[in-house]
């Protein structure tokens, strides 16, 4: 399988290993992802799906190996440049990571404030993504007063609000009923059609609807088990 097709790869992993104490959460992963791809990362609980997304986001550093994102070697990123790199990503964390004492609006707006956008743009943009995710009415609520599914939708809204070129979504529909899940997946599909590269980690790929052009990366016990193309 040739990994060097037309476009340059946006994400490249070379022999990446992540160790927690003695435990190998990722074991010698080599992987290339093209811009605009739609990738599913599947595998049982504890397989290393979240770890894979976290090292791409630089929320964790790798123990061994190299990661190159858009031509930038992550090992060489200084802590000054790190925030700017992260702004090119949108990440949905498995445990949401919402700030408990800020409203839904503020949580989502933070991404844009951090990037120095102006207030009127922020307001418009944030209310737009909240509308799309069905969280418009909860804009002024605090995260702990939301239901699990509502929190998850806020996390999704925050991940996409900055219009990132790469979206990393860890189990983004795990707490959602099928109707809300479809809305979230359609939202992500929309960004995909606009050219964003999307990686979704999910323990249950059967749940997901079928997409035109997806690849499924299957992990098990930290090892890359299989890469397959999804065709419905």
């Amino acid at each position, binding site marked *: 399988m040739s990994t060097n097709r037309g476009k340059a790869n946006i994400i490249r992993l070379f022999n990446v290993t992540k160790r927690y104490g003695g435990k190998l959460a990722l074991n010698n992963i080599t992987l290339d992802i093209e811009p605009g791809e739609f990738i599913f990362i599947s595998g049982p609980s504890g397989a290393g799906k979240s770890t894979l997304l976290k090292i791409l986001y630089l929320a964790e550093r790798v123990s061994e190996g190299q990661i190159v994102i858009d031509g930038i070697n992550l090992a060489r990123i200084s802590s000054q440049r790190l*925030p700017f790199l992260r702004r090119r990503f949108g*990440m949905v964390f498995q445990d949401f990571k919402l700030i408990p004492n800020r409203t839904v609006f503020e949580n989502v707006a*933070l991404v844009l404030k951090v990037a120095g956008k102006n207030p009127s743009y922020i307001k418009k943009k944030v209310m737009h993504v909240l509308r799309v995710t069905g969280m418009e009415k909860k804009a002024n609520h605090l995260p702990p007063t939301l239901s699990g599914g509502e929190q998850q939708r806020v996390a999704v809204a925050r991940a996409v609000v900055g219009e990132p070129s790469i979206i990393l979504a860890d189990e983004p529909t795990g707490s959602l009923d099928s109707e809300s899940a479809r809305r979230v997946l359609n939202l992500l599909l929309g960004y995909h059609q606009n050219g964003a590269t999307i990686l979704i980690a999910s323990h249950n790929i059967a749940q997901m609807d079928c997409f035109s052009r997806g690849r499924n990366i299957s992990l098990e016990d930290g090892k890359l088990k299989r890469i397959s193309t999804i065709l419905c």
Partner: protein
Amino acid sequence: MLKPAKRFNCDLMQFLSNVLTDIRSNRFLNIITIMTIALSILLVSVFMLFFENTGRVLSAWKQGGRAMVYLNDSFTPAMLPNVKEQLISTGSIEKMVFIPKTQALERLKREIGSKTQFLSTLQENPLPDAIEITMTTHSSFDRLQKAANQIEALDIVDTIEYGQGWLGRFFKLFNLFKMTGYAMSGLFLMIALFITANTVRLTFYARQTEVEIMRLVGATDRFIKTPFYVEGLLQGFLGGVLGIAILLTGYLTLSSGISQNLGAYVYLDIHFLSWPAVAIILSSSTFLGWFGCFISLKQILRPCPVK
């Protein structure tokens, strides 16, 4: 051309509103920090007040340190202005009172007591003329001693008596008291600093999640730090104002009580802290808030990304 200014205004407004949101959403933590700063400041300023006033009272005593310059037999009242000039030239002198020997004898009679009539039978006054001098307050004992030696060396002077033993001890003790007071002020200030820094660190500990999440969504360290610093400065300032307010209330209550109960016996010149001292305290407390932030942010925002 108006755009940059407007942009700046918007940013500032938004920035201030962010800080206010922060303060609102962490009310409990803020209240505790402000209270701690206020108490620390109260502590230091109470001690300063106490120490300043005790020092003032003691220096009033020190001022009581007078010396008697006994003039020899060659002295005549006509020489007085000349002698006084000579004395003044030695420095360290605040006040001079000439006590002619007739007056001294009367004083002696009074002191020895009315019962004993024998002094009135004297043909000749056996006492010397003298000048009572009051030393300046700010002089150290060493300077005093030097001045006394200079005076004693004058031709016209027989001897000088200035409580060499007693006054010396008092000076040494007073200096020791002053040194201890400064040392304690310093120590208390450091304790206040540590305690405040600790408290701020604790409030940051409770807000670690917040900071972590902000970093994860791409906030630069500066973006995270700035509101914390503004908050810290504000907390410090408010804490200082509160501390001084408590001190002032306590001072007014107590000083009126003291002057009512003791005013008849002792004249006590108790002052509140001077304006410069208040200014120093307020800037220290503002610094305290800032410093607490500084320490805590250093700890939280380590160069390595946190999980």
